[in-house]
């Protein structure tokens, strides 16, 4: 009976997640036939090909972009979460709803919204013209900056939820007590509230850092496709170059980055627990 109940989900996970992931790892060591398909055999050539400076640039650019995006999302996420958690319960519900709406809005809509805003002669351009910062139709897109704004916009709500989750049960008299005991504003946050928020911050970082690497829509639509993320690389290798083994190798690298960052975050979380114990 139990087996029967678990079977549908179990078969889905095993057949559509675990086996496929193993196959990707295996394919990353295969050589390609003339059409870029999987020929079989065992070789490290795909990984060696990924060491090409062109691809290394993609990896370093992606890591930088993801790190920057994570940092910005964490800072803004903390500020918003602190603001949220220090409101009255009814206000918290309302504000939370306000953040859920953009979070749940279609990803593509949220991305092309920025094309509207940043297009030459568009709202942002008119504004900067009016204050004399720019003169005439300025190209805000495509650019690295536009791509970055799109990434922050896409991931900010994702970062807010876990931080808020760890802050919302905080008794706000804690901060007041610290203040009464002579803590300044900074110390109230760095000594009292940030440590409480840290598990949420770690979760937020994990939910921002790796998914950013896998994004491919934003760099194409807002960045003009010039500065690629790992996600773009994988899509290009599969759909344009039709080089499946190399695409598999790039996917495995992304998986390894995921495992590595999880190990780092896991270690940080464990140190956190030990400190508080």
């Amino acid at each position, binding site marked *: 009976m139990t087996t029967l109940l678990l079977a549908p989900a179990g078969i889905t996970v095993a057949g559509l997640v675990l086996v496929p992931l193993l196959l*990707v790892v295996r394919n990353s060591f295969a050589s390609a036939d003339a059409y870029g398909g999987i020929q079989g055999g065992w070789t490290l050539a795909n990984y060696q090909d990924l060491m090409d400076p062109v691809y290394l640039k993609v990896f370093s650019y992606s890591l930088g972009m993801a790190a920057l995006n994570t940092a910005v999302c964490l800072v803004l996420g903390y500020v918003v979460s602190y603001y949220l958690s220090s409101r009255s319960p009814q206000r918290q519900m309302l504000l*939370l709803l306000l*953040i859920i709406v953009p979070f749940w809005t279609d990803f593509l809509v949220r991305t092309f919204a920025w094309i509207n805003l940043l297009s030459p002669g568009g709202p942002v351009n008119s504004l900067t013209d009016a204050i004399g910062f720019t003169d005439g139709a300025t190209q805000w897109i495509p650019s690295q900056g536009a791509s970055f704004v799109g990434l922050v916009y896409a991931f900010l709500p994702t970062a807010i939820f876990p931080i808020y989750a760890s802050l919302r049960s905080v008794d706000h008299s804690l901060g007041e007590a610290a203040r009464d005991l002579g803590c300044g504003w900074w110390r109230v946050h760095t000594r009292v509230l940030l440590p409480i928020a840290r598990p949420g911050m770690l979760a937020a970082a994990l939910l921002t850092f790796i998914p950013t690497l896998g994004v491919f829509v934003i760099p194409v639509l807002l960045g003009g496709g010039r500065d690629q993320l790992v996600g773009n690389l994988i899509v290009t290798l599969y759909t344009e170059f039709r080089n499946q083994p190399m695409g598999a190798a790039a996917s495995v690298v992304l*998986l390894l980055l995921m495992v590595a960052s999880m190990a780092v975050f896991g270690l940080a979380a464990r140190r956190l627990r030990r400190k508080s114990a």
Partner: protein
Amino acid sequence: MKHTLDTVTAWLARGVIAFLYIPIVVVVVLSFNDSEVTYKWAGFSTRWYGELSRNTELLAALRVSAETALISATLATLCGLLAAMGMARLRSRGKAVFSGGLFLPLIVPEIVLGVALLSVFGAMSADLGTQTLVLGHLVVTLPYAALIVLGAYNALDASLEEAATDLGCNAWQAFRRVTLPLLRQPLLAAWLLSFTISFGNIVMSTFTNGVGSTTLPLRVYSMLKGGLTPEINALGTILVLFTLLIILGVGLRQMRRVLLGAGRS
């Protein structure tokens, strides 16, 4: 006494929340723009909604997306419900292993999951189409559906089902008459959330769609590469409205369970 930095961060927070809305508001406003180009305001008009309703390519894509979302959301909710009931009978170790597997797709980058599925379909030389699309979307939606149903099922009082059995219900009757009615709300929430996730999905769809199974996001994405038109803004406005309806349907309580639950474990 309030610190000035408190005031500064409060305003920054309000600014960030406003920042989340500016792009969405702009999409809605510009969808009523009577102009060929998005950025030049030429008066109020609903003509782009008319154009949208005559765009057969987009309508065909809408149909694919709706069908895929319908099937995969139903499968995900069903699998989630069965898994929740099965897991309640497992010992803690088996439970941990099984839920680890169930939530694995949440951690693995979606693009890798897409590539992985494509490799399997390739190895089996399966034709890419609606079936493969549905399987891909099932992988993406199952963890969310399971998260909601599992939480709701665990919160149920197990003695209710026992009482029903004591009173002469067989297992099926107890399930139909007691458990299912109690789970109606969360099951609907799981289904609606899965539906939206599938409907808006683009990464997984890129790898699992085939000829004739282009979903709405895929179609819009390829249209966007040629430039943004007021027509796409009109579509965006409809999708924003659709989001609001779903959120109302799911309810804040279920939303909180999914979105805030992830931060605690």
